């Protein structure tokens, strides 16, 4: 919302400087996005009359304009805009002028033609936005007059404020002035209006019928007779509209917008003769009903949209959003039916959003207008129309009433105010803060120190005690509430899962892997292209089709990341990601709880590892390393093809025999499809159970002070025998065994094709003494016997 200092001062006569006012706006929750000083540096600008426009003999983009400064002499100007015609009055920056942006105007030649000044646009004058070139001034000004004098321009300040959804009042000059006046300690008053009343009562020509009173709380129509069709709005009004961001259109539309900006009440003037029978019917649309709105678009409506119809039940407009073309004010209009209404905010918001019509009116209705400012707004409109267009207001009003919000006073407990804010305010202090902004306080008859607070009609957002507490805080000043430290004695800490996740990340970076965070969205077909079932849940409104499916695996994202790097000639990248995947919920599980747990997907946290330029065993090593770090002693792999993986180089990663993921190499076909020419080793595991697992403390094994003895043992075992099983047998065979390490596996011509050789280094020690050769030999034999017996092994020479 933009607002002018001069306009604010008409309602709240403050004399604080603009910096103080800006600070007040910030403190009140209407933060200043921009402050602009207007009307400064315009001393050299005068009103000029266009005598003639001519083409430039040697340029297309600029033309020549002769202007008269009141002395009858033609002065030639070169100009890049072509929107003026002979007779128009325009602002001219004379030679020697310094423009608001610092540019100096000098006599100069442009493509061989002299230019003796510069014609100005609104932007160049700092008077608002341009609408197609040079600013055309009102025709009744006198050429040669300084512009500031001619249009009554005084230096002014324009604030552009951010307005939150809970401040319907702040979308009007009056609302902002009221809030500001309370903070600055000056009186506030609404504008007054006493239009001339004449002719027959409005009710003799107009009628209102509210068929859906739940959506329309009030619908008043006033009648203005005797419109001068040639009238144009005055320069001061056009200027205010322009700097506040609205385009001057016609006298009546300008007045309508002016009243809306000033009082926050959207309104709609109809050509009285365009309203069948002069009757307004306010009803819900019928499904399938259509209306062509003022912007010339046919709108399809549904049963929750509210329509304003004429006596013939044909729609004139969409309530609170936009009018139709049929009863528009035209050059032939003489009598005006003026609508001032209150519509249910939720309903207007819904319709405006559905139709994509975020109009100024809808923005105000949606936040909640003031149903009681309507009478003043109508009088203000009538006064301005009388002044500008010569109309007279018909006595009376046709005032349709529906359901308005309940405005029972809210009980505000002073104790509660202090409980929430941490302040020490008494009822008198609370009253002093609230009364000036219209939250009128009355001592509660039945509870000492508490207040019954009347919610002002312009604060539709406020309905409960906590809303009033916020107003107290806002006007007390957030920075005056004493800051306090928390007094909790609870220690903060990470959970087991969070600790273990950090350990995991630390291990992975230690292994030389770098973390990536690609988007969790995939393109349709991307899962099947990667060898996975097309089970991804879709978004209803993705930004682009390439990001419309939720991932069920980290594989496509990481393979794409490898491909991106390869395309940029970074090969052998080692990447990992810890992120969520979204699996369809399995049937039969209907968890309990608030919300819709029955609809939410099976969301899991996965770890993905992609090692470019590496083969499957490296991924297995990564898996075993992280399992060891996480204390998962029973982690292993079982050869098995997995989706998206190399059919003969993939396995299931298991913990305690339960699959937790896949490990191996990416399918060469998938790699080729991504243009990747290196092998890519792959690991993906579900972290949920792995991180949540409580790993007991490791029991201490005393370390011997005596030297140990190493013995190498090579066994030939059936191919199906697991190396891990043999290792376990060795560890358990003798109490003298400290450690066992597999250092070689061998399958060669010397070994039967269904057998292989496993070579272990066993370390023996004793905590009591240095072992003798005889003791080591005896223990060695015990181990050999155990492995031979348990695994059908033979000792290799």
């Amino acid at each position, binding site marked *: 919302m933009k607002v002018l200092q001069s306009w604010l001062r008409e309602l709240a006569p403050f004399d604080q400087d603009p910096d103080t006012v800006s600070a007040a706006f910030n403190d009140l929750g209407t933060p200043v996005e921009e402050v602009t000083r207007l009307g400064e540096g315009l001393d050299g600008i005068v009103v000029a009359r266009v005598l003639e426009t001519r083409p430039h003999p040697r340029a297309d983009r600029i033309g020549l304009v002769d202007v008269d400064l009141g002395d009858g002499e033609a002065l030639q100007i070169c100009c890049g805009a072509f929107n003026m015609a002979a007779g128009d009055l325009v602002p001219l920056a004379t030679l020697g002028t310094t423009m608001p942006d610092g540019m100096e105007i000098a006599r100069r030649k442009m493509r061989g033609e002299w230019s003796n000044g510069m014609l100005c646009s609104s932007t160049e004058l700092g008077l608002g936005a341009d609408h197609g070139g040079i600013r055309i001034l009102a025709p009744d000004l006198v050429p040669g007059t300084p512009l500031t004098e001619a249009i009554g321009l005084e230096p002014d300040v324009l604030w552009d404020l951010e307005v939150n959804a809970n401040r319907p009042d702040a979308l009007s000059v009056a609302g902002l002035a009221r809030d500001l006046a309370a903070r600055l300690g000056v009186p506030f008053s609404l504008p007054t209006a006493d239009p001339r009343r004449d002719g027959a009562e409005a009710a003799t020509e107009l009628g209102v019928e509210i068929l859906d009173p739940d959506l329309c709380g009030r619908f008043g129509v006033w009648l203005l007779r005797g419109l001068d069709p040639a009238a144009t709005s005055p320069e001061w009004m056009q200027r205010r509209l322009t700097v506040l961001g609205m385009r001057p259109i016609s006298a009546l539309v300008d007045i309508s917008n002016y009243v809306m900006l000033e009082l926050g009440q959207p309104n709609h003037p109809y050509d009285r003769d365009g309203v069948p029978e002069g009757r307004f019917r306010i009803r819900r649309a019928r499904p399938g009903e259509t209306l062509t709105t003022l912007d010339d678009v046919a709108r399809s409506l549904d049963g929750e949209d509210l329509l304003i119809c004429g006596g013939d039940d044909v729609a004139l407009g969409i309530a609170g959003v936009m009018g139709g073309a049929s009863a528009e004010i035209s050059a032939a209009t003489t009598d005006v039916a003026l609508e001032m209404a209150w519509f249910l905010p939720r309903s207007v*918001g819904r319709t405006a959003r559905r139709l994509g019509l975020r109009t100024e009116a809808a923005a105000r209705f949606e936040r909640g207008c003031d149903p009681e400012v309507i009478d003043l707004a109508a009088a203000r409109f009538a006064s301005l129309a009388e002044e500008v267009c010569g109309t007279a207001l018909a006595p009376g009003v046709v005032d349709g009433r529906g359901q308005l919000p309940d405005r029972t006073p809210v009980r505000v407990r002073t104790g509660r105010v202090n*409980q929430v804010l941490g302040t020490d305010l008494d009822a008198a202090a609370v009253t002093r803060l609230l009364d000036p902004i219209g939250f009128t306080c009355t001592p509660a008859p039945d509870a000492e120190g508490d207040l019954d607070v009347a919610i002002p009609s312009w604060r539709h957002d406020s309905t409960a005690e906590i809303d009033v507490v916020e107003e107290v805080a806002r006007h007390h000043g957030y920075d005056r509430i004493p800051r306090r*430290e928390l007094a909790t004695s609870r220690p903060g800490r990470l959970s087991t899962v969070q600790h273990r996740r950090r350990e995991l990340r630390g291990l992975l970076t230690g292994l030389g892997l770098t973390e990536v965070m690609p988007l969790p969205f995939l393109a349709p077909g991307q899962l099947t292209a990667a060898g996975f079932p097309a089970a991804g849940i879709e*978004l209803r409104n993705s930004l682009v089709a390439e990001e419309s499916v939720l991932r069920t695996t980290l594989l496509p994202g990481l393979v794409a*990341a490898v491909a991106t790097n390869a395309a940029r000639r970074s090969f052998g*990248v080692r990447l990992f990601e810890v992120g*969520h995947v979204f699996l369809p919920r399995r049937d039969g599980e209907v968890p309990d709880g608030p919300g819709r747990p029955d609809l939410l997907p099976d969301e899991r946290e996965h770890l993905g590892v992609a090692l470019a330029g590496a083969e499957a065993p490296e991924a297995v090593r990564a898996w075993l390393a992280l399992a060891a770090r996480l204390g998962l002693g029973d982690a292993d792999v079982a050869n098995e093809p997995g989706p998206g993986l190399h059919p003969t180089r993939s396995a299931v990663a298991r913990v305690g025999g339960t699959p937790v993921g896949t490990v191996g190499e990416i399918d060469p076909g998938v790699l080729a499809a991504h243009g990747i020419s290196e092998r890519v080793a792959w690991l993906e595991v579900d972290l949920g159970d792995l991180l949540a697992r409580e790993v007991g403390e490791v029991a201490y094994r005393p370390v011997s002070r005596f030297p140990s003895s190493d013995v190498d043992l090579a066994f030939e075992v059936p191919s199906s025998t697991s190396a891990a099983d043999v290792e376990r047998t060795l560890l358990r065979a003798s109490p003298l065994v400290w450690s066992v390490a597999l250092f070689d596996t061998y399958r060669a011509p010397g070994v039967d094709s269904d057998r292989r050789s496993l070579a272990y280094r066993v370390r023996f020690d004793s905590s009591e003494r240095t072992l003798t050769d005889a003791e080591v030999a005896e223990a060695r034999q015990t181990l050999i016997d155990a492995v031979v017996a348990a695994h059908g092994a033979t000792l290799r020479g």
Partner: protein
Amino acid sequence: MGSQVTDDIARLGATAVERLAWATDVDGLRAVESEVIGKGSELAGVKRSLGGLDPDERREAGLALNRATAEVAAAAADRRAELEAAAHTETVAAERLDLTEVRSARSAGHLHLVTQTMEELEDVFVGLGFEVAEGPEVEDDWHNFTGLNLPAYHPARDMQDTFFVDLGEPGDVVLRTHTSPVQLRVMEEQGPPIYVVVPGRVHRNEARDATHLATFHQIEALVVDRGITFGHLAGTIEAFTRAYFGPGFSSRLRPSYFPFTEPSAEFDIQRPDGSWLELGGCGMVHPEVLRNGGIDPEEFTGFAFGFGIDRLALARHGVTDLRDILSVDVRFLEQF
């Protein structure tokens, strides 16, 4: 006047010293030593023959013999030290390495900037007495909107453009637009007192450009306990500001609006140079939200504050384009 024996001893000692000086390495020195003072040496022979002399001669010869033996031993030790030093010099010269030519076989990998920043923030909050809570990225309407006091058609729903997930009826399931749904989940699951921070990924249906991301990261703090006031909110933000940004930084709160808090505020951080950083939103947890979380708002009060972390993470390194958060290029990632 020296006897013949004494003279012999002096001569033998002098000869031995001279021979030792000629030894060129430690082994040669050891051989010479053995020859000149070993059991078979001439000096040993002289020692054995002393018994045949008269007492005076024997005492005099004994003294000479001791003197000569000591001189020879000293000469041997000196020569050994010389030879060992020379050998050491030669060895180390031969073992010279240029250690500046060494490169690490494989350098450690890098955590993503977002992770680094998240972990740092989590640590700060843990230090302030908070635990860390997490929740799902795909949420139902209740937890993301309605339960947070954002019913259907609430104008503030526009503040958060939403991705809708094709589950249930349209609008039933969304990608969470903020981390606040976890507020309700923590209230449901644990109840007061609550001192948690919630880091996480969130999604908004907005076109990506240098200053906007559709997928980004937030962290928010939630406290619900008896006696929690707006003063605690401001004090905790100030404590966080100093702990995370540094002692020269401070904070301020400005009135704002969020449906799930009331009173609500924006909070800004003031840098030591006086400039301001608009960081995030905060407020007292709305009584309706507490009630929706199964907590009596008359008995318990609470506050929440949160902010986006992607901009923070990048700004520390001078990265200005937010889209770089999504980069998978190792040349980018390995710089941090």
